[in-house]
Structures are given as C-alpha cells and as structure tokens.
C-alpha cells in the first residue's frame, strides 16, 4: 500500500518537472567498437527513455534509459546472434541494460554533464556523460557520446576478452528527442 502511494505520488509529481514524451522515431542509441582496429558501427533498435528536463532548472534533470539488448543490430546477422550469447550480453539472463542518472551539472546554456549508473550484465559502473541540449519548436534533442570499457561489464568473455582483436573501449552514442 505504501509503495503504491509513493508510486502514485511520483507520477503526480513528475509532470511538474516537465516529463516529456520521447519521439522514438528520431531517437538513436548507437555504438562503435573496434575490431582489428576497424571501427564497426552498431545500434539498438528497442529502448525506452524517461527524461525529465526543465531548461530553467537543468540541474534537476533526470534520465532513465533502458535498452533491450536483444535488439542489437551489429550489421551482421551472425554477429547479432553471437553477442546475445553468454560470453557477450547473455541476454537470456540479463535482457536489459539500464542507465540511471544520479546528478546533472550544467556546463553552459546547452551543455550538461550527466553522471549516472550504467548497469549491464549485472554489473554497475558510474559513467560521466556529456550531453548537448537543443530545443527546436516543441522538441528537445539530447545528444552525446561516451566511452565504456566492455571488459568492466564482462562483455566478451573467454577468447573474446583478447583486446587486440576487439578493443576494450566502445563508444556509445545517443540521441534522445523529447516532445512536449
């Protein structure tokens, strides 16, 4: 009962800090890995994002993003199957990756430094994400990129932990478009 009341309260409170709808058709979550020093682009086609952002008080902004790891598109069907397996994402046991913002520091009128917890494959690491904010009409676009070290999340175990073949660092790029 108590939990329900808190949930109800939070849904009532969230609109107060401009909870906006996400335009998924214009939003992207992509990544670039390096295989034998060749940059290879991929993306996730299914994710959900909740963004609360008020340009008047950007430090109060909040974001939570959940990525359906099985929706990975590496550009090759064979690799899509491979990265779902145990040694990589192990999507059977850990279907989703989650980013939860913990603090937001405005750097300038259109730039934020968002700190948050990134949880993948049962492991949580803090990440610092630089975000640029662009408002146009009733849409607000949040864009940014940040590196993660795949081995910190045990992404690519066993033979795949060889970073000479697949580099440890993976660039994550995102664009989240919200509309009022």
């Amino acid at each position, binding site marked *: 009962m108590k939990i329900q009341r808190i949930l109800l309260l939070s849904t009532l409170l969230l609109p107060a800090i401009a909870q906006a709808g996400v335009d998924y058709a214009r939003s992207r979550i992509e990544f670039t890995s390096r*295989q*034998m*020093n*060749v*940059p*290879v*682009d991929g993306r996730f086609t299914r994710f959900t994002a909740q963004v609360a952002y008020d340009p008047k008080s950007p430090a109060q902004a909040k974001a939570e993003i959940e990525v359906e790891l099985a929706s990975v598109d590496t*550009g*090759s069907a*064979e*690799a899509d199957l*491979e990265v779902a397996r145990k040694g990589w994402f192990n999507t059977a046991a850990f279907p989703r990756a989650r980013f939860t913002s913990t603090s937001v520091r405005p750097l300038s009128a259109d730039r934020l430094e968002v700190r948050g917890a990134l949880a993948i494959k049962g492991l949580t690491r803090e990440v610092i994400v630089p975000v640029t904010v662009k408002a146009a009409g009733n849409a607000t676009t949040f864009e940014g990129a940040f590196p993660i070290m795949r081995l910190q999340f045990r992404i690519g175990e066993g*033979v*795949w932990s*060889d970073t000479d*073949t*697949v580099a440890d660092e993976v660039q994550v790029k995102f664009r989240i478009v919200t509309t009022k």
Partner: protein
Amino acid sequence: MARYTTVAVFLHWIIAVAIFATMALGVYMHELELSPARLKLYAYHKWIGVTIFGLVLLRLAWRLAHRPPPPPANMPAWQHRAAAGAHAALYLLTLAIPLSGWLMSSAYGFQVVYLGVLPIPDLLARDKALADQLRDVHYALNILMFAVLVLHVAAALKHHVVDRDDVLARMLPLLKPRTRAP
C-alpha cells in the same frame, strides 16, 4: 638467354606467393565460426589483398619501363596470343579481385584498415544486398583467377618439360638456362 629483370622476377614471385596465401586463406576463413581468430584471418586476408594490389601497380609501372624478354622465336602465333591474353587477364584480375574485396567489405560495413594502421576510405555505404552481390563477384573473379592460374602454371611447365625452352628459366633464375645467350 634474355631474362626478366631482377625486379620483375622478384615482384612476380612475391605476388605469386601472396596470391597463393590469400586465396587459401579466403577458402579456409569463410567456413569458420565467428571467433577472434576469424576476425584476425579476415584482416590478414584484406591486408595481403591490398599489398597485392599495390605490388601489381608497381609491377605494371616497371613493365612499362622494362619490356619483358620476347617469347621463343619458334613459338606458334596462337600461343603468343594465348600467352598475351592470359597475362593481360592475370594483371586485370590481380587488380580487380582486391578492388571487389575492398568494395564488398565497405558494403558490409567493415572498413579496410591496412595493417591495422592505414584506413582505406569506404567508397560504398553499408548496403547488405549490394555487399552480397559483391561477394558473388569476388568469388566469381577468384574462380576465373584460379582457372587462368592453372593455365599459366601448366603452360610454364609445358615450356620447360615438353618444349624444353627457357620460358620458365627466364622467370625462375634457380633453373639453368638451356640455350646460351646470343
């Protein structure tokens, strides 16, 4: 006996070994399951292909400046034409095959980074259907290459064993010339 220049001989054999290595690699690697070893072999295959392309350009430039020795005088005219045609086909294929491989790789979304250091620009954007077509082209050109190579090697051996002339020896300095230099 009129020989090929040392540079021409060196380039011929380096390219021959590279073609043999990368063809064998190509046949072997595409059957493998996705693994770090496969990623490495694909990279080596591409690096060797780029190397062959570069060496063939060098060789053609050298050939323009240093004409190859004339074929044996007693060789029938049709054999002259066949040899010239086969050699032209080999030059064309040694350029076309790396080109088709590079284009295929681009279309699959994998840029070629020569020796893991030098990125070769992508001419094509990622396009799976086009990539599959280019893979078929790469394969067909290699089948053709293999056929011409068999002919090339058979002709060289025929000259050496049956005709007992210097055609092979002038490209393979380990063999003793059979005729004296005029």
